């Protein structure tokens, strides 16, 4: 027995790993298979498609395998305004959603703590829009804000808007739609961090000569950084690739097209698959770079 005890101590790590690995692998298998099938395969296919050349037969919508990296240069030259516009709109919508959601989440998560019923009620109100498809909600906004709608005609009658102005089809309408649609994605992560915020830190801050504004800047904001990072990512990433709000059938117009609309048009209308694939890869890479820099700069690795 004594020798057996010594034997196991020689390599406890190895022993443990060997014993643990089959179960761990088994549990990981469905996830790995799923990712391989539905993420890796399409990604590889997308990269291959983005490098294809039009078929030698000249038949539209048919492409031959190639290594034509110039496709990327072409799409950047053709669609640079759309790419920039996408990230610009997404950025503005993210900032607006944050400005709207932070006070809301702060109220629900901190100020409303003594009244749990009010907290639940307000959370339900934040989540309630999810019960209706966002396509329907966006269409409803289109109706509400169309040129003939009550809101716009009233605004024009009151001379708040010039008589020949439009709302739908403008960048303002698209950014409004993006902001509106992503507010719950911003509010919920903010709420979860603010709900856990220990108010004793705020008391300590004010005890140490910090005015309410300074407490907010130096204590509340840094402590809610995980929620801010999660919320802005959940808003910015899908907003940058969104093609519903900016679409002509919803709140957008011809000069508000975002990269998502261009990809959609190239895939489904123009049948220019390499261009659509290249644009998708560019969108994905730019988001990846932005997110990496953002998380690094936010310095929330240890708080997350």
């Amino acid at each position: 027995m004594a020798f057996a005890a010594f034997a196991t101590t020689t390599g406890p790590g190895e022993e443990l790993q060997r014993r643990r690995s089959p179960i761990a692998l088994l549990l990981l298998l469905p996830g790995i298979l799923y990712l391989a099938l539905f993420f890796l395969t399409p990604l590889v296919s997308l990269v291959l498609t983005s490098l294809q050349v039009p078929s030698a037969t000249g038949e539209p919508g048919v492409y031959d395998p190639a290594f034509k990296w110039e496709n990327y240069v072409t799409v950047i030259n053709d669609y640079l305004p759309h790419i920039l516009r996408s990230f610009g709109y997404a950025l503005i919508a993210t900032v607006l959603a944050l400005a709207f959601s932070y006070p809301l989440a702060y109220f629900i998560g901190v100020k409303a703590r003594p009244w749990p019923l009010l907290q639940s009620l307000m959370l339900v109100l934040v989540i309630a829009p999810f019960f209706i498809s966002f396509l329907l909600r966006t269409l409803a906004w289109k109706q509400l804000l169309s040129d003939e709608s009550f809101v716009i005609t009233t605004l024009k009658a009151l001379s708040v808007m010039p008589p020949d102005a439009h709302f739908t089809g403008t960048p303002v309408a698209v950014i409004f739609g993006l902001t509106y649609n992503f507010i719950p994605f911003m509010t919920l992560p903010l709420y979860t961090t603010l709900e856990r915020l220990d108010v004793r830190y705020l008391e300590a801050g004010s005890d140490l000569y910090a005015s309410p504004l300074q407490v907010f800047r130096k204590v509340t904001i840094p402590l809610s950084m995980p929620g801010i990072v999660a919320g802005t990512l959940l808003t910015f990433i899908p907003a940058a690739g969104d093609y519903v709000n900016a679409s002509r059938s919803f709140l957008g117009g011809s000069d508000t097209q975002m990269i998502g609309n261009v990809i959609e048009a190239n895939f489904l209308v123009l049948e220019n698959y390499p261009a659509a694939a290249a644009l998708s890869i560019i969108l994905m890479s730019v988001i990846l770079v932005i997110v990496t820099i953002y998380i690094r700069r936010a310095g929330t690795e240890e708080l997350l």
Partner: protein
Amino acid sequence: MSMATGAFAERGADLELVGISKRFPGFTAIESLDLTIPAGSFFALLGPSGCGKTTTLRLVAGLEEPTTGRILIGGKDVTNLKPYQRPVNTVFQSYALFPHMTVLENVAFGLRRRKLADPVGKAHEALRLVELDHLAARKPQQLSGGQQQRVALARALVNRPALLLLDEPLGALDLKLRRQMQLELKTIQEEVGLTFLHVTHDQEEAMTMADTIAVMNKGRIEQMGAPEQLYELPKTAFVANFLGQSNLFTGTVVGTTSTAISVDIAGQKIVVPVGRSHRHSGDVTIGVRPEKLSLHREAPVIDPARNVIGPAHVIDVSFSGVSTQYLIAHPSLGTIVVFAQNMAFGPVAHVGEQVWVSWDIEHGFGLADDPAENPRFAADTDTKSIAAQRHAALIAELGEA
């Protein structure tokens, strides 16, 4: 600008609470409290949980608003000032060190808010005072409990507040570290000369550290004075039992001389000096500390300078190294506690043995309490009953929420 900004406090300021009361929905935490803490003193507010001591501290810090009354620091009315405008800093029970800042930035926080020169240098200096400068670059959660406590102390001390508030700052530390920190805190207070207001439920901690102790119970101050004074001459049964242990007996005054009163307690005559008794006629409660009692195995010789009780029987003996605690059952006086120094090896009396106890009449004290209110002075503040109180308070709190 407010009085909090500007230069360091040269020395501590005195604190004056005038007619302070604090009512929360459903209960009164503090009732008409008047308290003056002289500048430069180490003042302890001692009491069981729920007695209103932490609320008092939060009122002084500005984290709560009093229902009535005024708070003056260094003669200036601060009742309507916000916490950040008061020349007061707090060492919180939970420490509340900012987790997103390094130890150094935590300590420099107050200095930066007041825009004082060289915050980093001063923060390092404060960390050197608590011997933690080598950990300045760490985050608070990388430190042990004792180290965090010292950082919290440095973070408050570095601002040189006229008044430093300590809210049970040693509660989370283990016994050995607590003893060490008690001594360190006392030394630091003497070095910097600031006014310390220390809130605690640990009577030993209060006695070790404070110049003056106020014993608080149910939102009122029961008694205030130097530790020796409170211990040797408690005014109420609550103080007599919260600050150490006491043997208390109730009886009627049967004789008074210019120097002493004699009290008849269930047929036994006990003498207490006039100067050490708050009441001199009618029903009184008198007491004596367990360590002042001597144990006799034979009836002691009658001595006019000593009170004698006996015979009685030993019902429990517990040996604790330095001393032995004897529980003695007297047929009409109930249980008497005796602490005896272990001058010999082991206990001198055994369970069941017949004994007498005696004490110097100069060691007795008479309480100011109305005995009718407290017919039996069972020690209701031992650790068990504090735990029971806490439990009840917690249940009440949960019920409210």
